[in-house]
């Protein structure tokens, strides 16, 4: 196997962080090579160096036998590197063709380009209409645009950054078929992920990163998921304790819940019992944020749609619902669940003002807020100098622990969380999941909205899926297979048929 790409002794230091240290690995012609590591292990710094977004402090890279030191992404593209980003680098207001043209150095004239997009996309089983605006495409279709954009440049090395995190299992299968087709034609593929199962079934080799260093390069098929996880984390994962839960009486009923807007909820109905965790799966952008907003009170809904303990909450705002015990934690930590510029102590006032008695007669008790922030920090092992630290200065995992802890200490009757462990390191994720289980153990009802199926299977008693604003009927989690879940998630909306509107 000839090497298409090779890295030797790559290093990069940010203030206070050694992001990459003596990284060496190689990707061969026609190989699908996995880059495996936790969040913060240095994967994204590494690919940014390959793609010319970050310059390495030391070490060297070789691409096709030539030294590879791109000054910017355009130089990297010219050298034959293409990249599909985790968070799409697409322009919503522009058309598919315009987006593709932006990803090319010398795009052909408009008509030719549109024709080639249609040709290439059909050839790889990813049909696309070049004239459509990105804003009207689904997540899966958007990813196709990114991939087509890369393919039109005939890349020698294709980098895919967590490509399946936004796809349903069926959509992911189509993606892998495309990747295998590309590899068969000789393209080297660097595949970044932390999903062990897909790496084990689709990748030829895997390089594992931990704390910015290469732990090893292995054949993923020769190792169990547990062994790979141990290499990735450096220790055995903590075992989650889900004992001691006895679902009690129904406390929350949601019926005929609809909303307006871009991704409207359509006749959502669910019930929640005390001591129960209800898992809601689905690809982000299918109404998750809207559902949380409807339950938290940010977007009040029609009368009779949200009822807790016999009280109709539908018309109430977030504060009134909190007083009654319905608490929530949105997905976006910076700017939604917390204000980055504010101290942790001030951030408690966002949601705990009434329940913790931090605000009385309109007056803020700053010392009480500080004490409560300290209580959250201690109870949830938030690593920070103190309650005076700005929320934005905390790492993702620590801030998420703070946000969840703030609500859990509020002794909710019902807690709704969206993507509780997104972008959080494994240790913090385990702590957050345990806190949610403990909360259910104390007879609260918990709704966990998440894209992470493993997490939902681990936590929830019942499982349902949100797809295009519709919620499927919940099913007991025990005995559910991944295939069944895939079908509940909507079976890849339009992915197999690959419709091209005229």
């Amino acid at each position, binding site marked *: 196997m000839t090497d298409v790409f090779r890295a030797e002794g790559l290093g990069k230091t940010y*203030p206070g962080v050694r992001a990459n240290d003596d990284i060496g690995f190689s990707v061969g012609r026609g190989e699908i090579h996995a880059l495996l590591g936790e969040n913060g292990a240095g994967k994204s710094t590494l690919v940014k160096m390959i793609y010319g977004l970050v310059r390495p402090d030391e070490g060297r890279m070789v691409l096709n036998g030539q030294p590879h030191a791109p000054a910017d992404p355009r130089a990297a593209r010219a050298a034959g590197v293409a990249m599909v980003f985790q968070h799409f680098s697409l322009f919503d207001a522009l058309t598919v063709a315009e987006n593709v043209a932006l990803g090319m150095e010398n795009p052909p004239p408009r008509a030719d380009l549109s024709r080639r997009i249609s040709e290439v996309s059909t050839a790889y089983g990813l049909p696309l209409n070049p004239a459509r605006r990105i804003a009207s495409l689904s997540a899966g279709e958007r990813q196709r645009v990114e991939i087509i954009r890369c393919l039109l440049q005939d890349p020698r090395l294709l980098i895919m950054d967590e490509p399946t995190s936004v796809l349903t299992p069926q959509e992911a299968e189509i993606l892998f078929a495309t990747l295998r087709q590309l590899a068969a034609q000789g393209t080297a593929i660097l595949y970044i992920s932390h999903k062990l199962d897909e790496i084990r079934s689709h990748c030829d080799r895997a390089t594992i990163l931990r704390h910015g260093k290469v732990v090893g390069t292995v054949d993923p098929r020769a190792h169990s998921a547990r062994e790979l996880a141990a290499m990735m984390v450096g220790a055995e994962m903590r075992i989650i304790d889900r004992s001691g839960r006895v679902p009690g009486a129904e406390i929350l009923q949601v019926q005929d819940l609809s909303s307006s807007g871009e991704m409207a909820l359509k006749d959502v109905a669910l019930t929640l019992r005390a001591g129960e965790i209800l898992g809601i799966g689905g690809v982000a952008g299918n109404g998750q944020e809207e559902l949380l907003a409807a339950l938290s009170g940010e977007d009040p809904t029609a009368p009779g749609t949200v009822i807790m303990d016999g009280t109709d909450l539908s018309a109430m705002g977030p504060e009134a619902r909190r007083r009654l015990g319905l608490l929530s934690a949105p997905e976006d930590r910076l700017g939604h669940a917390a204000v*980055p*510029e504010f101290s942790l102590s001030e951030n408690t006032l966002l949601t705990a003002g009434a329940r913790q008695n931090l605000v009385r007669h309109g007056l803020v008790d700053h010392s009480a807020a500080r004490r409560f922030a300290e209580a959250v920090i201690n109870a949830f092992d938030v690593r920070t100098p103190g309650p005076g630290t700005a929320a934005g200065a905390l790492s993702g995992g620590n801030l998420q622990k703070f946000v969840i802890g703030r609500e859990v200490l509020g002794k909710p009757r019902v807690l709704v969380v969206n993507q509780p462990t997104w972008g959080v390191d494994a240790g913090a994720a385990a702590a957050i999941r345990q806190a949610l289980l403990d909360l259910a153990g104390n007879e609260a009802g918990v709704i966990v909205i998440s894209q992470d199926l493993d997490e939902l299977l681990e936590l929830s008693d019942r499982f349902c899926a949100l797809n295009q604003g519709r919620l499927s009927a919940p099913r007991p989690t025990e005995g559910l297979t991944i295939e069944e879940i895939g079908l509940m998630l909507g079976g890849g909306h339009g992915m197999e048929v690959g419709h091209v509107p005229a």
Partner: protein
Amino acid sequence: MFRLEPRASAPLGWQIATPILAVLATMFVGGLLFAAMGFDPVAAIRTIFWDPLFGPAAGYSRPQLLVKAGPLILIACGLALGFRAGIWNIGAEGQYIIGAICGAAVALAAYPAEAFWIFPAMILAGALGGWAWGMIPALLRNWFGASEILVSLMLVYVAQKIAAWMAFGPMKNPEGFNFPGSRNLQQYPAAANPELIANSGLHWGGIAAIVALAATWFIMSRHVLGFQVRTAGAAPRAARFAGVRPERLVALCLGVSGALAGLAGLFEVAGPAGQITESFGSGYGFTAIIVAFLGRLHPLGILLAGLLMALTYIGGELAQMMLNLPAATVQVFQGMLLFFLLGFDLLTRYRIRRRT
């Protein structure tokens, strides 16, 4: 080369230091400008910043400090509230004019009656007029999503035309020999806003400014409303999550800042200005924007910035008389000051490091 590293929070030291740096830089560049125009830069800077307080004519100019600073501070307090919340009322000048017209209308309607209620009724009318003028952009934003920046600004021009119409039409002094302009309220005791302590420059507007400063401080640091305002400005989604209703905040901020600007206009028309004229608006509404920023949207800062801006007004007039400097010098200074402040602000938000 240097690179910028965002800070998680703004250090207090830099927050205090940057306005001072901006003032010093303005003096320096202003001096260069004067030198280029053929004036003695040291004399010019001294005339503007020193002589009004300690120069030979200070006895006359010192009271003027409070006269000019009062309306600036009063207006800036309201603006600061909105700016903190990300609500941009830049039409305070219009609210100031309408407040003055409404207040003057009460006085002129009551003329020549002498009654204790006339002045309080004028205050109420002034505040209400400014409030109503500020509520127009607020409601248009809440109902239709129209930009409050552009609407409030357009309304300045409309208010100026209304003032002109008043001066030439309905409010024209019947005993004024057909000159445009209303009766002079200073000569109508029941409606006048006189100097309260001789040679201090303090009138009721100054008292109102002090009350506004205290109220702003209390709301911003102690009351949950201040927390909501700051949250809305820093992270609108977090504010909604916390239960803040954005429409109410828009109405509150534009209404309050309009009312305060209206009050400033009322105290001006009943006091130093005396009458409604075609050019009643004198730019206080715009200068107050600079005062709010220079004072870091903080009451104590606004107090100091208001006094400093008042100083440049008086110093500018002095320099015009003594050195023949152009009248617009003050405006240039104020614009420059805001520029430098916004530029130096970088230091509070970013750490500058040498690129390695």
